[in-house]
């Protein structure tokens, strides 16, 4: 789960990670009010969406008067902001963050994430602030300094020194930087964060460090104990069908093909997509129905898959283990009574009681249900059906 910049900054403030003062606004009027409250004569109007690259897409603008604040807020609010992370359709901007201006002397990058190979968090810093870190990593990897932080010891000053000297900071700025980095590590650990990215981290004219931007993602498995983070969840930033699927214990991701897939298990679900691709078709979605594959979950699965108008056929691929295939077959038949399935459904059931299951499907005599003998056969039939063959 991700949160907005302004929300990440709220968490930062509680841990004394320096940020600028700012207010959230949903209308141009509120934006002006926010600017007046902040005072000063320069403000930044920032679109709040869950995607990076907002500045380049025209979602971050500098205003030198309150009338400019109004004008820019009016421009940004309601726009479909397109960045390299949103996809071509962009994302609707529903709120803007009005922040005071800052005297920026130099921009850096600072990030924290789990290193899966080391099995501990790593903090990364770079002098190339403001650039996409993936690009820096690709073109000039020597410009990224990394330190692994053993969670058993936690963040130590030497971690901070390694980063600070690596960035070429003068000696008198090192302690300020260490304090900043140490507080950031605490934000990360205390909230079960998956990643924090500050891009840019800025050094001001008076040699202070500030998080000018802030991006945070969290471990979904830990949300049960992160009530404050949970309250920050913005459902309007997530795919509605994915949210709905989640309510029924289904894991669904929409893709752009025309062969719908319903599979038990995430690995087999990905494998099914790959098989469809291999057989010359294009998968319309990833869908893991989980372990039970009952009539209700299968029916819900059909509903969700068929919300996508591109779907021309559905491939149901279930490998019954503890779940018996005859039960799944009955579930599929029940599901077709609950919901209207108007495309060919290719069903491959293997594993426990598969023979009985095929009998059950045959005897039900439902016109648009086609039995398949194995994974390849099912994929081929589904691809052909989607092509109208």
């Amino acid at each position, binding site marked *: 789960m991700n949160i907005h910049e302004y929300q990440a900054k709220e968490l930062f403030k509680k841990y004394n990670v320096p940020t600028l003062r700012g207010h959230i606004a949903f209308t141009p009027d509120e934006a002006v009010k926010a600017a007046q409250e902040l005072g000063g004569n320069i403000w930044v109007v920032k679109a709040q969406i869950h995607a990076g690259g907002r500045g380049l897409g025209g979602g971050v603008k500098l205003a030198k008067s309150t009338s400019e604040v109004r004008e820019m807020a009016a421009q940004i609010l309601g726009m479909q902001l397109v960045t390299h992370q949103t996809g071509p359709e962009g994302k609707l901007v529903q709120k803007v963050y009005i922040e005071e201006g800052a005297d920026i002397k130099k921009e850096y990058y600072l990030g924290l994430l789990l290193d899966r190979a080391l099995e*501990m968090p790593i903090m990364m810093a770079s002098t190339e602030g403001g650039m996409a870190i993936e690009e820096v990593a690709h073109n000039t990897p020597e410009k990224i300094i990394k330190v692994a932080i053993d969670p058993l010891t936690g963040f130590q000053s030497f971690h901070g020194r390694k980063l600070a000297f690596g960035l070429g900071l003068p000696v008198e700025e090192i302690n300020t930087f260490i304090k900043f980095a140490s507080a950031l590590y605490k934000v990360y650990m205390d909230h079960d964060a998956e990643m924090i990215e500050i891009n840019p981290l800025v050094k001001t004219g008076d040699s202070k460090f500030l998080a000018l931007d802030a991006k945070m993602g969290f471990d979904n*498995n830990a949300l049960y104990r992160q009530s404050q983070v949970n309250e920050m969840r913005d459902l309007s930033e997530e795919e509605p069908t994915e949210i709905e699927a989640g309510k029924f214990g289904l894991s669904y991701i929409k893709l752009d093909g025309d062969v719908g897939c319903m599979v038990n298990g995430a*690995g*087999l679900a990905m494998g099914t997509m790959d098989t469809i*691709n291999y057989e010359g078709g294009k998968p319309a979605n*990833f869908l893991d129905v989980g372990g039970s594959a009952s009539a209700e979950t299968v029916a819900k699965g059909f509903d969700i898959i068929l919300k996508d108008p591109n779907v021309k056929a559905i491939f149901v691929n279930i490998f019954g283990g503890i779940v018996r295939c005859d039960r799944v077959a009955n579930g599929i038949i029940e599901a077709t009574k609950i919901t209207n399935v108007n495309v060919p459904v290719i069903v491959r059931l293997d594993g426990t009681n598969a023979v009985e299951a095929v009998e059950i499907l045959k005897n039900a005599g439902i016109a648009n249900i086609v039995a398949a003998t194995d994974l390849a056969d099912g994929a081929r039939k589904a691809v052909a059906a989607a092509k109208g063959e």
Partner: protein
Amino acid sequence: MSILVNKDTKVIVQGFTGKEGTFHAEQCMAYGTKIVGGVTPGKGGQEHLGQPVFNTVAEAVASTGATVSMIFVPPAFVSDAVMEAADAGISLAVIITEGAPVKDMMFAKAYAVKKDMMTIGPNCPGIITAEECKIGIMPGFIFKKGNVGLISKSGTLTYESANQVVKEGFGITTAVGIGGDPIIGLSYKQLLPMFEADPETHAIVMIGEIGGDLEIQAAAYIKEHITKPVVAFIAGQTAPAGKRMGHAGAIISGGAGTAAEKMAALEAAGVKVVVSPADIGKALAEVMKKV
């Protein structure tokens, strides 16, 4: 022969008396696994499925001589259970539970390593030595005895692969479901040498997926140290970047962890890589001809 577990392995169950623990412990016992007891704090002294229940893992180990623990406790209690097992001298913990926080696993794994305890999982189907010992939730009947070792991040793809191996007339020595979370216990790199050293294993099937670089590490290891033929499939060739595909660790982030890079690394290491998972059995039959 086999790796890690066999018909003599003594197993306890943490979360023994819960619904999941009970159901699967019973299935494992029916398969022939020596479940010698279980742990449910507060229920010590009772009997469950004909076996003793203990309050602590230490008591269970002292009383039964168990060396392996199968963990079914709810996600919030997984790290505690793993650490308790490590502290009590268990040598292998098989963590079935799905949904344990990553931070918890980071601490639990570090402690397990310190205590010399191996772990499998979390969020995995477990481990099975065909027709001897099943410690997990997989359907045992699929795994006919034979000469193929199996390592997989995915549960149902493990069943799919084993089924194809058997349909081609071969069988399994041991199959290990290592799980697809960001932090897992035993991985390819630790399991490959075990299969290499097992005289009964003649070939290895390895199932990977997008995210992380364990498969890349495996490729480097295979190139240097593995003489037995390896067949591999990497799930998620058609997965979009930046999306979590069901498993917490199955995500292409920052352009890294793609199926293409893993497949290329494995191929360069001499592994027979299949593009479609439907071809795992056939590819295995091909490499077995040469053994």
